[in-house]
């Protein structure tokens, strides 16, 4: 047993100014400021982002008619309905296609543009701007322009006929439409992807390349053994961001095909939108939202684990 003696109190350290204010010393004030500064965005984040998510969990377990006052608890009924709904399953499969095709396409295209831009000295700014403009253009406007370009008697088809390729159905073909939508999404995101890769490339010390060149490594070897591994953290970010983006495909789909033809392009988010605001079934829509949330959450975790661990070993 230890006895505690009375510790003589040290004279309080006082600041040379404002010593009277609420007896707070400098460190306390500093903390108050920092926590205050952190708390405000946190409250905002919780109220605007987290609470609605939790609330939609609640809605997903109810038969939530849009305007009815009676919202009975139905357990997992909504989930069961969704999982036996061929259209929802179709939208899941389609969303898978958006991700599996879209993400690599966007990454590769972005990387190629970034690598090419790095080689260019003249007019670099011009190219960079040109590639970035689509990213900051309204998605709805872009969708409609492509819808117009790709219509049966549109400019692209005129070109196809001139080249002897014959007219294509584009957005009216159940096999082609989804890939044209992906192409437009990728085209629009190249600028953003390029920018991230450019930043990543600039962080790779020139020293490594010089050393490799002295050792006689070819351009391809340098790319595979230096550029790719050192770009890994940037790529991880890109993969996660792009996956989430493609999992949430909506605006382009709604405006270019509306989910058709024959539901070949409908995405989960478009299906959610139709359930909520066309069929007014908030319960089903929330259940679908929760399913999508879980998918995004799991996929992101897996990506961070798999790709992240590789990065740490390097």
């Amino acid at each position, binding site marked *: 047993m230890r006895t505690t003696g009375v510790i003589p109190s040290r004279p309080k350290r006082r600041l040379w100014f404002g010593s009277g204010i609420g007896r707070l010393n400098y460190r306390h004030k500093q903390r108050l400021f920092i926590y205050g500064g952190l708390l405000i965005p946190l409250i905002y984040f*919780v109220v605007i982002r*987290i*609470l609605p998510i*939790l*609330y939609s969990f*609640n809605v997903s377990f109810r038969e939530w*008619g*849009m*305007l*009815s*006052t*009676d919202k009975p608890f139905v357990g997992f009924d909504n989930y069961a309905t969704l999982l036996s709904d061929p259209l929802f399953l179709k939208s899941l499969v389609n969303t898978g296609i958006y991700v599996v095709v879209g993400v690599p396409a966007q990454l590769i295209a972005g990387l190629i543009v970034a690598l090419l831009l790095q080689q260019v000295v003249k007019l670099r700014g011009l190219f960079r701007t040109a590639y970035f403009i689509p990213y900051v253009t309204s998605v709805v406007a872009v969708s409609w322009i492509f*819808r*117009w370009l790709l*219509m*049966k*008697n549109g400019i692209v088809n005129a070109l196809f*006929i001139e080249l002897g390729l014959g*007219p294509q*159905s584009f*957005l*009216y*073909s*159940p096999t082609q439409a989804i890939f044209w939508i992906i192409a437009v999404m990728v085209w629009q995101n190249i600028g953003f992807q390029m920018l991230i890769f450019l930043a990543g490339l600039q962080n790779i010390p020139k020293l490594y390349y010089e050393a490799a060149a002295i050792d006689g490594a070819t351009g391809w070897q340098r790319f595979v053994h230096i550029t790719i591994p050192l770009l890994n953290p940037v790529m991880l970010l890109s993969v996660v961001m792009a996956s989430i983006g493609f999992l949430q495909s909506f605006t382009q789909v709604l405006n270019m095909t*509306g*989910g*058709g*033809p*024959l*539901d070949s392009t409908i995405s989960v988010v478009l299906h959610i939108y*139709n359930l*909520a*605001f*066309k*069929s*007014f079934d*908030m319960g089903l829509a929330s259940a679908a939202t929760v399913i999508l949330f879980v998918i995004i959450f799991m996929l992101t975790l897996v990506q961070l684990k798999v790709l992240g661990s590789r990065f740490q070993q390097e």
Partner: protein
Amino acid sequence: MTKSGYFSFRPSKTLQFLIAGLLLLSITACSTKPSEESGSAGVTASGDQTEPITIEYWQYEFPAKVELINALIQEFETEHPNIKVKQTNFPYDQYNQKVATLVPAGKGPDVINLYYGWLPKYVQSGYLQPLPESSFPGIAEAFFPFVDTAKLNGSYYALPTGVRTLGLFYNKDLFTKAGLDPDKPPTTWEELVSDAKALTETDKNGQLVTEGFAWEPGSQLHHWFRDGLLYQAGGKDTSEDRRKILWKDTPAGLEAFKYLVDFATMHKVGINGFYTDDANAFKTGHAAINVDGSYRLGSIKKDAPDLNFAVAPLPGYKGKSTQASFWANAIPANVTGEKLEAATAFLQFLISKGVQEQWVEKVGELPAQKEVALQDKYVNDPLLGPFISQLNDANAHFFIDETQERTLFVNAVDEVMLNHVPEEQAFNDLVTKTQKLYDDYWAKQDKKK
């Protein structure tokens, strides 16, 4: 001892967060309840004659309608000095979203303008109240028959000011160019096909240059099928109790479906997506004939003032029929007491003869009441006349879910077009799927009783 006790329970960060979240969730879940009470607040103010009652009117943003309603509100307020009306508008795309988010929050309107196809959903949600019968007598006699669509569970829930029907728009210049008489539009199914063929123009690659018949199943053609072609061929849309789809009960359904699809597959006089859609193709002079609604008159006037076109009633076959659709005015369920009286008075005003006449002139929609519509000045109008003359033969089909029903129809046509599924099989599939939609709806309705 105390030390170990202190350390024994130490929730992880995630758990702490979850608990906090759940607590907050339970708070918000409780706070959603009291919104119902706000509606009854108007009752307590009764007896006070000096204070005017304010009611709110909601409709979507359509400039001509918004302007006219503003003018009408002034007129109404002079007639009823103790009532004030406030108009609120939302963009069409967001209309349902706004209703979905604002109404449960207790910020609802007292009179609301709705597309008739949404009515079953709104009524099913318990959002509307039946119109008081004593204030709206003799609806069935005064209005054209299609207003029956607003009658659910035995009572009328909404009434229209104006309606639209489908008619045949045709480009007179293209008729002349093709050697057809621009004053003789097709009046039968057969004539429509032969005229469309004569009007179609293709280039050396076989690509369409001019559509003889604008073919866009997702626009109006699915309505044309259900309320035009089907009845003309001798069929019927649904059973009296609206539970059974009758398209397959007579050969008329398949005949109508084939007739519609053949324009694209056999006659090759039109394709979907030509100049983005049928209305656009017609306005730009790339389509010679288009089945469209009377509301298109206004947009043609605005977008293509030089277009030399005329309107004719829909071509007939064994009988005559066209589709009618309308935006109707209804009173939400939570409106009671004095507010209900004021809302009823405003709705009575909205369907009065004077308002309907202004509606034709300023908005371009047809009067919904026989007495108003069948006046000579409308019947003899070259553009309005063809639409008016069809009102008696107009059907407004009952919708369970407008979007889903349209998608099913478009998909059936696409199955034939893109997957070369035989027409009969695609049609049978369509009937089965549509019937399932109806069955699910009615099963839910029956469960509620």
